[in-house]
């Protein structure tokens, strides 16, 4: 039963207020993209046993989508941040490094 802080309303929302939205920071590939790129965009997923970035919506709350950095093996939460970004902000990455030195996720570390 996770608790994640919604970065928009500041509420520490428990899981039943939230709706999970899968992997974060996917780059949309539309018409004109290669089959590989489009496949990866829709289906290829990081599925790490460890640090993971994902999307959540504060569905039974302020309704906003946000991102969370979470460890899938321990459920430790490194931080949450707004969805209007294409990559994890530095403070989040630093927070992860402090807890998981040497972590990597896609091109991020």
């Amino acid at each position: 039963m996770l608790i994640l802080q919604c970065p928009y309303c500041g509420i520490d929302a428990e899981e039943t207020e939230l709706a999970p939205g899968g992997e974060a920071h996917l780059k949309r590939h539309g018409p004109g993209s290669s089959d590989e790129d489009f496949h990866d965009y829709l289906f290829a997923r990081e599925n790490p046993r460890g640090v993971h970035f994902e999307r959540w919506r504060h569905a039974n709350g302020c309704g906003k989508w946000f991102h969370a950095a979470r460890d899938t093996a321990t459920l430790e939460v490194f931080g949450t941040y707004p969805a209007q970004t294409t990559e994890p902000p530095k403070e989040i990455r630093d927070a992860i490094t402090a807890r998981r030195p040497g972590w990597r996720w896609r091109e991020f570390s």
Partner: protein
Amino acid sequence: MSDAVSALKGASFDGLVRVEECGLQGMITLRGDLSNRAVAKAATSVSGQKMPGQNRANVAGESGICWMSPDELLVLVPYSEAGAAVEKMTATLGKVHSLAVNVSDARAVFRLSGPAARDVLAKLCPVDLSPEAFGPGQFRRTRLAQVPAAFWMDDAETFRIVCFRSVAQYVFDLLKAAAHPAAAVGYHTSVGG
């Protein structure tokens, strides 16, 4: 409009606390950049209330402003004034990117009053309702059993709860069950109280 009726026509129940449907309440959803002066003016001018901060509500009787999200307010006005209020707000907003829409008929409002009000609501919402954590002036959107809802406190023993009109009966039945006279909890208030 004489033949306009609220979802439960003012139904009420007395148990651990008093549960009542508040009847018709004017409500306007206002979306926009809350730091924009026109947006603030649109909300304050029709409600006569100040702009609330994050997760807060300024409400007096049937008029008020509730903070719904970083770009959304719920503006309360008397039911009969909602239509005019929307027009006035739209005029005030002018060309500013925003959306003001009358949702008075889309919602139902309940009042939960009595010393045990916190205990009763805490049976249905995953929210810390202790006096230290929540009191008058604050506003919370959350889950009430299986439906979304929002509430604020008019005073230390009174909640007003807003939900969608279609589930008004469900919410009323939930509140009745939670307010069963023999179901006192005594967590936020001593059982005697």
